[in-house]
């Protein structure tokens, strides 16, 4: 399993610098929550970390390999990426959708080899999707669909999983369920990077927190040392209160209306 290192990474989008001089290491087997206000550059940072956005400066390494030196397919086999608002366009069965996660390992033609079918079965079982395997993915509820997307992302056993707001739009139970699965992946040795808006959830599942503001890394470290009132107040420009500690931390913001 490999760590992901960003070294002085800058990203420009449409001629505007959206991430500047970010130097961060994401360690293997750790779950890092990326937090920050809207428009801070979280999504761009994640997309670039997945190797899907050209860098304006700096380098990114996955383990010992420069991300830019890996072929598309090799990179696709080693890291999985779940964008914000992932969707599906045709009523394809859940089983087939999950199997698409194996696309980088497949030959150009022909059906799924038998060995890979077993991996799909395991991913379906791991994500409570066995009963839904023949259901068109377009007919799933939000929570079921999130599970299917996560199964799609993890069926190939990636070293690195990057997920952009995987819990947005989910009710508390399903958000917790999705987080638990991400946590389990990290415990199994995968490098997991997740953008989150739900800070209580971040406190609950993350080993480390990366705070991003206005395109710059504002703070990075163990969750308990980042999710504290002064940093959060500064990060979101609104008074923050932290109650409790460890996994039971609860964060509230008070603004004058």
């Amino acid at each position: 399993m490999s760590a992901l290192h960003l070294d002085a990474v800058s990203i420009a989008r449409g001629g505007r610098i959206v991430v500047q001089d970010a130097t961060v290491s994401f360690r293997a087997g750790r779950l890092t929550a990326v937090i920050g206000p809207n428009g801070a550059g979280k999504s761009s940072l994640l997309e670039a970390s997945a190797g899907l956005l050209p860098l304006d400066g700096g380098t990114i390494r996955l383990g010992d390999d420069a991300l830019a030196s890996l072929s598309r397919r090799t990179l696709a086999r080693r890291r999985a990426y779940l964008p914000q608002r992932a969707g599906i366009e045709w009523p394809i069965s859940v089983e087939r959708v999950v199997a698409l996660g194996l696309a980088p390992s497949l030959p150009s033609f022909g059906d799924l080899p038998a060995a890979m079918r077993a991996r799909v079965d395991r991913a379906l079982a791991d994500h409570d999707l066995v009963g839904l395997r023949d259901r068109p993915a377009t007919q799933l509820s939000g929570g079921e669909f999130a599970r299917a997307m996560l199964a799609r992302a993890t069926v190939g056993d990636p070293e690195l999983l990057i997920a952009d707001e995987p819990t947005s739009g989910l009710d508390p139970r399903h958000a917790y369920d999705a987080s638990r699965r991400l946590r389990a992946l990290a415990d199994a040795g995968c490098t997991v990077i997740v953008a989150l808006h739900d800070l209580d959830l971040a406190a609950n599942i993350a080993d480390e927190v990366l705070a991003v503001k206005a395109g710059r890394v504002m703070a990075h470290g163990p969750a308990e040392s980042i999710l504290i009132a002064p940093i959060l107040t500064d990060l979101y420009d609104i008074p923050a209160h932290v109650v409790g500690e460890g996994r039971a931390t609860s964060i509230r913001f008070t603004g004058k209306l």
Partner: protein
Amino acid sequence: MSRWLIPALAIILVAAAAASLLAGTVWLTPGEVLSAFSHPAPNLAGLIVLEIRLPRTLLAILIGAVLGLSGAVLQGLLRNPLAEPGLLGVSAGASLGAVIAIYYGFSASFTLASPLFGLVGGLATAALALLLSRNGGTLAVILAGSAITSIAAAGTTLALNLAPNPYAAYEIMNWLMGSLAERSWDHVRLAAPFILVGGALLLSLGRSLDVLALGETQAESLGIAVGRVRLLALVGTALGVGAATAVAGAIGFVGLIAPHLVRPLVGYRPGKILVPATLVGAIMVVIADIATRLIRFGGPPINLGVFLSIVGAPFFLWLVVHVRRRTA
């Protein structure tokens, strides 16, 4: 079900093609057709089969196949059930090219002038669409295609408006209605290489189209070079549909309808539709071509493009209503 789909469609296509050799103003028996193949003799049956109906049937298969295939690829690429080959401006460009050949009288002195001009027109518009959309995404391709379609259509109507004599106008109209009548081996030789190369490019995109069902970002993350897929789809469509339109005129609805007929039978997978949609497209055009030979309303024969529009437009209406219901 899906295991038998392709063999079943292939059998239907062979049967339709065989019927296409028998049917027409002069009905032939299977025996006459077989003897025309085994002992080519310059008698009436032999000439009808080898010089008229065989090239015509082959063209119908090639054209229908590439229209169905291209429609399936474009619907998968654009993730839009209403996409069709005409969207990229290729058909309109090919039409304009052929119309120019008729307008300036080249086609009167040289039979292959309109297909050749059509081919050039189709490829030129595709190149233009590609150039205009090279830095944009899929939406840029659609917008560039529809803009070019409007320009080419404007050129075509201008030619009709300024037609030097009623015959030229009639010929242009007739060509625009799409037909396989009076097509010869020369047309097959002209169109087949482009259609086969274009078809091969389009067929190679199956796996990528499956993954594209997840959207462009996820497809990129799964190792699909979306820009390259878009380019190959456009080039394949330009070659295949450009050549098809160049020899047969505008033939609509096949590319739109063929994928829809088979989509539920392959579990809606965009890549798995390609081969069945190709076969269904070929079947549709072969049968429609037979129908245009047999259905007479006392006057001139009904044109292939017109027949397919009459059958296809109600289907399109159904599709619009159906898609709206599904997404509402």
